């Protein structure tokens, strides 16, 4: 089933490549139709997913590169489940809004479908090398999407994106190799192996863990992106076409957080525990920094991009809080951010298609003209601000409340990001949609077409659903998250603070105060 899921988009690409390039009008519908197929498969997977099971499900394994013990090894668990579904969901939507792509549509659709395969694959891969292959191969289609169909400084942005990520993954590759070699030296038969499950049983010296953790973390930190490795993101977002931005923010960035959770925590528990402070601080800095920078952005798309930096900071914080709640929050926030920010980018794109500008100052008072669009925008804005009842809150709340016991100070600082989020989002909304309609260019902006509404509605529905009844996801993710936490607790002397014991913190501080 999973192989099918991974390969359907690829087959789709093959189908598309057979269509003669001059039938331009065909490609987008065809691409959408083809990308709905994986969505169906993913849906089937989601519902056939067995709740309450921590281990991987629907596992498939085949030898791939025999001499090096590389295998085609796929499996899904609570951590990857949501992301896979999100991926498959976002693709048809972003293809649906790509009418503005007029040039080389065929290539575009093919690139998109390749991208989908890569993304799904990297979420499902249980073989480190397989993961790396997908992780790296994603760069190519994304690079083309930004570089060919992007905006003014697209080439600069595309190259920056590619190189920056490649530098990160270079060391990742070295680290993966090191793991495989370690496996061969530690196992009696001395075979190389990149198998995730096999590598989990490797006992790695704490110094080695530090190095490897560093390499993995760097690669993923760049992808997330974690302050200060984030500067490729705004450029990439601003230049990328709408579909590109949606997928970039919606899915690609998740590779980083997913990797941190799946590999860094599971493979290098000791290093994780001892490096928590570093990453927590980086995450918090990112939250505040991203928000502050977002406030000043004159470009709507850049603003949303920086908001991603801020939001993903929450995810990272939740991951390294190393508490059940924090981890669950991180996992669900991954999905949430994909939905809301994806939708926001869709909206920005729709605005851009109408006005061919993203400068906030060029707008103003649009709500009178386009109430529906304004409504959706406000809805999504509040979702990403973290309004209770909408999904954004669930993630943030879990992260914050979950992180506090283990990382009180950083969490408090992070919580302030919630205030800043309100500032930049609402201020942007105010400047774009409210006030008098001054700029004549905005006079005849059309409201959402039926198709656009149809694209946004499902996202909005999910935002609401996950906000009110997150259990649909949580009950599937929780076991896997717990498993990782247990793993850390068993292999280190770390004990996740069980809530109810924190009062001690205060008591002790008070006593310190006395002395």
């Amino acid at each position, binding site marked *: 089933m999973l192989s099918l899921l991974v390969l359907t988009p690829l087959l789709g690409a093959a189908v598309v490549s057979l269509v003669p390039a001059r039938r331009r009008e065909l490609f987008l519908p065809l691409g959408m139709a083809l990308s709905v197929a994986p969505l169906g498969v993913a849906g089937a997977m989601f519902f056939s997913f067995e709740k309450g099971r921590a281990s991987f499900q629907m596992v498939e394994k085949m030898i791939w590169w*025999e001499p090096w013990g590389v295998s085609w090894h796929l499996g899904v668990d609570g951590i990857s489940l949501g992301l896979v579904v999100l991926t498959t969901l976002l693709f048809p939507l972003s293809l649906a809004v790509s009418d503005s792509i007029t040039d080389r549509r065929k290539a575009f659709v093919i690139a998109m479908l390749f991208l989908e395969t890569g993304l799904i694959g990297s979420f499902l891969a249980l073989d480190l090398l397989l993961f790396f292959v997908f992780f790296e191969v994603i760069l190519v289609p994304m690079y083309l999407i930004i570089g060919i169909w992007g905006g003014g400084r697209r080439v600069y942005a*595309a190259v920056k994106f590619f190189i920056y990520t490649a530098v990160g993954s270079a*060391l990742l590759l070295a680290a993966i190799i090191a793991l495989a070699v370690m496996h061969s030296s530690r196992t009696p038969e001395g075979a190389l192996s990149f198998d995730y499950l096999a590598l989990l049983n490797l006992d790695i010296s704490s110094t080695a863990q530090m190095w490897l953790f560093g390499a993995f973390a760097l690669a993923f930190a760049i992808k997330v992106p974690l302050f200060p490795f984030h500067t490729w993101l705004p450029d990439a977002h601003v230049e990328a076409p709408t579909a590109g931005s949606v997928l970039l923010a919606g899915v690609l960035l998740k590779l980083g957080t997913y990797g941190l959770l799946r590999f860094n925590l599971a493979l290098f528990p000791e290093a994780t525990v001892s490096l928590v402070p570093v990453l927590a601080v980086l995450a918090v800095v990112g939250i505040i920094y991203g928000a502050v920078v977002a406030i000043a952005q004159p470009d709507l798309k850049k603003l949303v991009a920086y908001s991603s930096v801020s939001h993903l900071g929450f995810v990272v914080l939740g991951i390294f809080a190393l508490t059940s709640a924090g981890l669950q929050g991180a996992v669900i926030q991954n999905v949430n951010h994909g939905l809301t920010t994806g939708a926001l980018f869709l909206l920005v794109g729709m605005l851009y298609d109408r006005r061919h500008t993203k400068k906030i100052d060029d707008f103003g008072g649009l709500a009178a003209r386009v109430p529906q669009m304004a409504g959706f925008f406000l809805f999504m804005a509040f979702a990403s601000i973290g309004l209770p009842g909408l999904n954004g809150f669930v993630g943030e709340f879990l992260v914050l409340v979950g992180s506090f016991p283990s990382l009180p100070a950083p969490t408090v600082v992070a919580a302030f990001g919630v205030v800043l989020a309100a500032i930049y989002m609402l201020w942007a909304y105010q400047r774009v949609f409210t006030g008098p309609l001054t700029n004549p260019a905005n006079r005849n902006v059309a409201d959402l077409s039926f198709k656009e509404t149809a694209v946004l509605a499902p996202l909005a529905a999910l935002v609401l659903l996950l906000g009110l009844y997150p259990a649909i996801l949580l009950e599937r993710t929780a076991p896997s998250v717990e498993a990782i936490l247990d793993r850390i607790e068993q292999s280190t002397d770390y004990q996740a603070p069980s809530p109810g014991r924190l009062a001690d913190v205060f008591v002790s501080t008070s006593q310190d105060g006395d002395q």
Partner: protein
Amino acid sequence: MNPDVVGDIAWAGLAPELILVAGAVSLLLLDVQRKPGVGVLWGSALGIMVVALALGIWQWVVAEPSGELVFGGMLLLDPAAAFARLVVLVVSILAVSAGRGLFAHLGTRAAEGLALVLLASAGFVLMAASQNLVMMFLGLEMGSISLYILAGITGDGVRSDEAALKYLLLGAVASAVFIYGAALVFAGTGSLSLVAIGAFLGGYLLLSPAVVLIGIGLITVGLCFKVAAAPFHVWAPDVYQGAPAGIVGYMAAVAKVGGFAALARVLLIGFESFRADWAPVVAAIAALSMLLGAVMAIISADIRRLLAYSGVAHAGYILTGLASGSSGLSSVWFYLAVYAVQLVAAFSVISVLGGPASSGSDLAEYRGLYRRSPMLAVALSVSLLGMAGIPLTTGFVAKLGVFLQAWQQGLEWLVVVAVLASAVAIYLYLRVIVTIYMQSPVTDDPVAYDRPTSWSLGLATAFTLILGVFPQPLLSLVESAGQL
């Protein structure tokens, strides 16, 4: 060993090369007798090579090269040699089938050109197969001199002359260095046969190995020059840029194959016991090559220089595999094979675009190539991505193999340098891809190329992609080629 009668020499073991040489000579004669059209010559040359390849495969499959010494111990026909032969022949076939334009351009000297290609291939195979230093030298010269001539053969252009002279002069010096090293080793060990040398050095403990050490050093340098490893690469960019486009890919590829095969033999068979002495040197050269190649390639505006420098970097990667000893050999073979193919493909595109006899190809000419000829654009970018080592291309598998070996042999630092260098290197391949896809073309007129070219390009591209996903066949091939 040492047969007294010429009769009982195992000619069969050398069948492909004999075919090549005989073919070359007959081509020349044919040309002298009645001037046939270029097409005939080109076709028959291709045929000869195909036959040779067939024989080579037969050698591989049926005769199963068991590594026996033949020709009075001059040659060691082991899997490695046989594999090198296959690579050289495949490369030659790809290059020649894509290079028809060049020979057409040569006009009356087509026969000479083709003959030289055949002879060069034969020479480098001999070089790869020989286990006697002087024999190796002969093979080397047989190949190199042919290449010198090919570099200058069009002769319509100062640059090709310059390229030829540079290549020849520096090459002659390098050869002298190499053979001097051989002489010193001979002085130090009293033998020229690598097997014997290896046995000797393994057996004796030399109290003052200075002579041998210097010999090793000189031989290494001589061969590093041939494979264009830093700092002995300086000639490569100029020659690649000046030589006729139609032949550069071939030149670069076969020279690298022969050179590395020889290097592997010398270091791993002859001087294995001196590993501790040469390994660090090789590693250093590797690191320098990777870094220097990447950095220099980034700033070069001519795509050929760019590829030349990237070739320097690739020499570094291959040396990384070599530095990790005999266990790394199979990865070296894999790397050589896939890189040679990518190189030839890339240069075939270049020669189609710039004209087969052109010297120098400004990157600017590649603007918007995608619009002018998608096929060429895809072929070029695939081979570039392969060189960049992007997953799902053979390049990635090759790099991975090399790195794995190096890491297992405790060359972690080298691997780290290598991955960083490759990350930097990605930028230069992206530069080309950017120009191909993301810039508007200078002219919109489509590029014309003949069917064989497209076949060869298609083959190379398929090779790079398919083997990049399912490298198993090639992997098992080099697995056996990797045994000494």
